[in-house]
């Protein structure tokens, strides 16, 4: 709170002070017996002005203090923080009331929005379960079709797989927001997990004719099985989608003193250098997405988001026409083993 503000706010009082002073002076100057002693008038003026200055200084101090405090309080406490505005002045009381009103109003709005979100989320979760029923039936039909037309069965399976993948994505997006409530960390053997994911996405790999190269996956990491499975699924899907004819995908893991790394490398299209910075952005499809591969721009965004929530780092390296390599970094279980041994 500056002195200029203070003067501005109390301008009228000061103006009136000046007015009184000049009125008094003019009366004194015009009254005959006193008019001789001009010095006295000057002196009187000075005394009065000094008194006014003193008054105003004290008032300024108090004004500054109280408003500084208020200002501070308003800045410190965001709207949802219920630490009250201190002080008993009319203004402070008023601000308190306004503040309370707004907090209540926004709380109500938040609740309303939350209710709506929950409703939509609930519906999506139920819907994804419902939709799995016809997908299962389709899967069984594909088996029947295979008996008289292998080509049609293959086509059907490709579409079913795409359906399944998209439904899975819906479910995971609706859950990703409340992900922290849904985590259960376990020691997971990478070899087992990767093989499971490959098997459950068997049609995808078979139909894109991908060669799978499994490296040394004999490491255990601390993670949430379901979400890591989902991450791998997304990455495998990308590798197949942007893969070459007769492409390969190489899955490897290695460890150093601090970390365990899981790398998924393919020899597909690769990502142009200008796009690489933005691949983790929501909805970003980049050049490859525009080439006609139906990209939603959600895959890598979700991978990044989920990995971060799990506490894993993901990084990407890519070169156009050479391929892409995505590495997931896990913290080692060193601490865990120490506690285990001491038990």
């Amino acid at each position, binding site marked *: 709170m500056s002195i200029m503000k203070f003067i501005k706010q109390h301008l009228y009082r000061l103006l009136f002070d000046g007015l009184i002073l000049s009125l008094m002076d003019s009366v004194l100057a015009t009254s005959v017996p006193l008019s001789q002693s001009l010095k006295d008038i000057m002196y009187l003026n000075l005394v009065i002005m000094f008194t006014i200055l003193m008054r105003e200084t004290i008032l300024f101090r108090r004004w500054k203090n109280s408003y500084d405090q208020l200002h501070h309080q308003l800045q410190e406490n965001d709207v949802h923080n219920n630490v009250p505005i201190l002080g008993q002045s009319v203004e402070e009381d008023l601000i308190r009331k306004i503040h309370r009103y707004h907090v209540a109003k926004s709380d109500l709005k938040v609740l309303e929005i939350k209710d709506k979100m929950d409703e939509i989320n609930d519906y999506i979760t139920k819907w994804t379960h419902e939709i799995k029923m016809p997908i*299962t039936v389709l899967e*069984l039909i594909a088996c029947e079709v295979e008996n008289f037309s292998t080509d049609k069965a293959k086509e059907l399976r490709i579409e079913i797989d795409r359906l399944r993948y998209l439904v899975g994505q819906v479910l995971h997006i609706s859950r990703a927001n409340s992900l922290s409530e849904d985590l259960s960390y376990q020691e997971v053997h990478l070899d087992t997990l990767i093989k499971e994911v490959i098997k459950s996405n068997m049609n995808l*790999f078979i139909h894109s004719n991908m060669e799978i190269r499994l490296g040394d996956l004999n490491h255990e990491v601390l993670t949430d099985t379901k979400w890591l499975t989902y991450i791998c699924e997304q990455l495998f899907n990308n590798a197949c989608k942007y893969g070459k004819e007769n492409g390969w995908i190489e899955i490897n893991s290695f460890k150093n003193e601090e970390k365990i790394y899981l790398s998924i490398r393919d020899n597909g299209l690769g990502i142009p250098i200008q796009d690489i910075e933005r691949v983790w952005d929501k909805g970003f499809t980049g050049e490859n997405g525009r080439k006609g591969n139906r990209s939603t721009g959600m895959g890598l965004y979700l991978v990044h988001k989920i990995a971060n929530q799990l506490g894993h780092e993901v990084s990407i390296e890519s070169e156009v026409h050479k391929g892409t390599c995505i590495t997931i970094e896990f913290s080692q279980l060193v601490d865990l083993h120490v506690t285990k041994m001491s038990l």
Partner: protein
Amino acid sequence: MYKILLVEDDEKLCDKLAKHLIRWGYEVIKIKNFEKIMDEFIQINPHLVLMDINLPYFDGFYWCYKIREFSKCPILFLSSRDQDMDIIMAMNSGGDDYITKPFSVEVLSAKIAAILRRTYAYTDQQMQTMSIGNAVFNLGDHTLKMNDIKLELTKNESRILHTMLLNKDKIVSRDKIMRALWDDDQFVNDNTLTVNINRLRKKLEELGLKDCIKTKKGEGYMMQ
């Protein structure tokens, strides 16, 4: 013949599932009255129950508890719910295994076979050895035998032969063979499959079984 009881309220799925199970050689009974599942269970006395979780009247967990009160009949849960909690609940209420929808038919058939084998401890000789002409194929140790000649097959070759023999006189697509191999952690691709089939053919030829695997162009293979 093993009797399988289907507790699934989606008619379409139930029908399709029943059809497949019958094709694999099981006897299938579908629940008609979902209010009185126990009555039907007792009357049928199945070897295996395929149980959905979301059912009218009571859910699958409830019926699982009910069945467990007096029967050790294996129960395999089939559900679209995939939260850990559901799986734990299913196991706690006495389920033997859990498959999430949508499942692949191969996985379902493998699980059913595994549970039946475990529960009824059957050592089906037919499952272990199969005959091709005058030769005997042993699934257990991956060998082909005829008179004094004994040939070792690789894991892949053995799986391929097994799949072909299970579908004798029917066209088997390359896809189907690959899925069978993948189910066994052998993630082969198209080229490798061709190589494997050619090797298998050569081995069969050594036993005088020339041309028993026929190529159906664009469709797959057939064994006669």
